[in-house]
């Protein structure tokens, strides 16, 4: 007697996913599929576009992390054309991405993840959303909005627009930051640190309340991927791509341009988004995860002091490598701390208000370039081929969440087994929900 559970659409994620779980006799989980039901074919329609316009088209891959795409794109173009922008431009670009981490990680924590924890998994679906959180915890709601605003407005300042930035151009940035703007941002970043501390405290409470759930539900091994700068956590700039095996060994640490030797895509017939895997391990053994939790697995340490303290606390509790899916939310908060600290360091750097942000002489070149940055949700790879007129002839893209399709599917399989076969919901230590509906 076979039963099919269809969850459509997968909610509280950006993208279009459909979950299908097939149950057999005695509720045995026979199959779990995570199908992504649409794709837009950037790999095709970027062909024929002027490369500097590709940098402005690519952000439309995602409206929550367009800065990451803008920066991966400009990095790839500048490699293809062999252009090195002035250092202040690179610092502005990194600051743009850190600003995005501030608003995106806050958005994810408060709007996408928190409802599950603050209301509890047994709450009615119609209440499990950020609107309920804001209604019942208005102070937290206000602080969340304030923190996201600081991130988005810094994005706006550097990128020209908070959503779909435009200022990165081959050779540098189209605008610089004034001293007045920098001074205002420094004031705000201090406020952001206060708001982050509040978020850290809330996260700690949630993690403590849910530690049993976090360490038991949806726990499974996989490979992990993320950028590192000689072992230190980094999201932009000089870095290599690190891969960690399920047992915690760094099995690869390669230059960005060599990604094709280590990363491959498997097409699942029921998903327009492919399954990414670690090529040397083959499919499906090599499926991996990207994003905050994997990043904290592959790096040795964080870049900034408070974040390093937060990392230590995190690792003391969940270990390294951490394979507990729900710990992603905690890892995200560790990264939020670093984003705020690093943003402050960049704002205090006198280069950030330099007016030398763009080369006047830039020429296109025939060639190809790989640009890799860490988007909030994972390792983002843009690879473009340019002709001698600077027109894109080919594009290959592996976007952040693409890395996680196969492992999201695995986490569903694992969790479904726990729920239907092991009846884990009866055994987990669930706290009293912070918000009662």
């Amino acid at each position, binding site marked *: 007697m076979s039963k099919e559970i269809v969850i*459509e659409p997968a*909610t*509280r*994620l950006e993208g*279009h996913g459909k979950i299908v779980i097939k149950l057999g006799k005695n509720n045995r989980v026979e199959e779990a599929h995570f199908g992504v039901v*649409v*794709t*837009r*074919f950037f*790999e*095709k*329609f970027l062909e*024929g576009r*002027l490369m*500097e*316009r590709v940098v402005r*088209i690519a*952000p*439309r*891959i995602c*409206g*929550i992390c*367009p800065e990451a795409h803008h920066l991966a794109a400009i990095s790839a173009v500048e490699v293809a054309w062999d252009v090195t922008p002035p250092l202040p431009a690179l610092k502005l670009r990194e600051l743009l991405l850190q600003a995005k981490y501030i608003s995106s990680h806050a*958005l994810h924590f408060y709007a996408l993840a928190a409802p599950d924890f603050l209301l509890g998994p047994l709450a009615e*679906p*119609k209440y*499990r*959303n*950020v*609107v309920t959180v804001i*209604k019942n915890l208005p102070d937290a709601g*206000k602080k969340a909005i*304030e923190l*996201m*605003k600081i991130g988005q407005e810094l994005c706006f300042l550097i990128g*020209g*627009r*908070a*959503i*779909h930035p*435009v200022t990165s*151009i081959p050779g540098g940035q*189209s*605008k610089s930051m004034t001293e007045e703007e920098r001074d205002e941002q420094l004031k705000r970043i201090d406020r952001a640190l206060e708001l982050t501390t509040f978020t850290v405290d809330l996260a700690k409470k949630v993690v403590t309340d849910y530690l049993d759930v976090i360490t038991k539900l949806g726990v499974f091994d996989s490979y992990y991927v993320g950028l590192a700068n000689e072992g230190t956590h980094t999201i932009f700039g000089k870095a290599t791509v690190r891969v960690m095996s399920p047992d915690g060994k760094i099995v690869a640490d390669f230059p960005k341009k060599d*990604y094709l030797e280590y*990363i*491959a*895509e498997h*097409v*699942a*017939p*029921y998903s327009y988004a492919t399954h990414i*895997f670690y090529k040397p391990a083959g*499919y499906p053994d090599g499926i991996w995860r990207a994003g905050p939790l994997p990043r904290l697995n592959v790096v040795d340490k964080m870049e900034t002091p408070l974040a390093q303290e937060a990392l230590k606390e995190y690792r003391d509790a969940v270990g390294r490598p951490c394979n507990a899916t729900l710990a992603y939310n905690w890892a995200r908060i560790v990264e939020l701390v670093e984003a705020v600290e690093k943003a402050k360091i960049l704002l205090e750097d006198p280069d950030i208000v330099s007016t030398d942000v*763009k080369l006047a002489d*830039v020429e296109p070149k025939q060639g190809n370039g790989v640009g890799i940055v860490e988007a909030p949700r994972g390792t983002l790879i843009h690879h473009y081929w340019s002709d001698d007129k*600077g*027109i894109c002839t080919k594009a*290959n893209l*592996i976007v952040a969440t693409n890395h996680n399709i196969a492992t999201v599917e695995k986490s569903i399989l694992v969790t479904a087994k726990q729920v239907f076969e092991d009846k884990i919901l009866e055994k987990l230590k669930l706290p009293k929900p912070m918000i009662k509906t």
Partner: protein
Amino acid sequence: MPVKVAMVSLASCWGCYQSLLDNHEALLDILPELDILFWHVVTDFKYKDLEGYKDGSIDVGIVEGVCRTEEDVHILKTLRKKCKTLISLGSCSTYGGIYGLLNLSTMDEALKRKFTEAESLEEPSIPDEDVPKMLDFLIPNRKIVNFEIFLPGCPVTSQNIKDALVGLLKGELPPPPNRTLCDECPREKSEVITIKQLKRDYEGIPDPKKCLLEQGYICMGPATREGCGALCTKAGMPCRGCYGPGPNVIDQGAKMISALGSIVDYEAISPEELVEKVGDVAGTFYNFFLPSGIVSKTVRKAK
């Protein structure tokens, strides 16, 4: 009495909804007025919930994104049935948007590139099991269902969205912006503009005060509707036309081609040089508008 709202995303990037969120504290005033019955990134309602609501029982429906698959068409039609007022949010829904550039290729060419030729593929294979069928080409949503309100933009600015929502809640919508971007842009413009030299966006360093088009950078301003606050030109970059055509224009790209013809100095820039410098004509002039163009897609058969 909270207003019943359902918000869907077809093939989209969620930038327009992010723009709604970027109203920040103003959200604290708007959200309590809304009874959100579907919004897949923020709430847990499923398609079966949406399909289960009584026809016409939802006050306001919002559509972001464009119909890429047959399932998108179904969701769009379902929402139209359930809602009294339907808002087209953003240029994807209103014009077809940036994904419309794929209309320059056939679907076969697109599937081939992504699923059989991409450099990182393990093995060529096109998904065909339990995935919705791709439409051959993109068309603007208004050709599938009627809308009461259109908010163009990529994304629509937070201010535009707030003004529209607050206006709706009050029962009095603000008047639509009815001039071109050039009217909004603060850069200095000469009485008569003549372009003597064309530049790619990365060439040279533009004068931050003067009109970009005059300096030779191809700016879609003259053919684009105002409403965004001239964000790109203020940031030093030419307008790409994301708000779509100004009033009384049927085809934004054709209009910009017409405008360029008027202001390019023939002695300084020959027609051949103009074409050479523009490089990608369709992409330059139809960046957000191609599915709404008079000729809206390639008529070439797959290569």
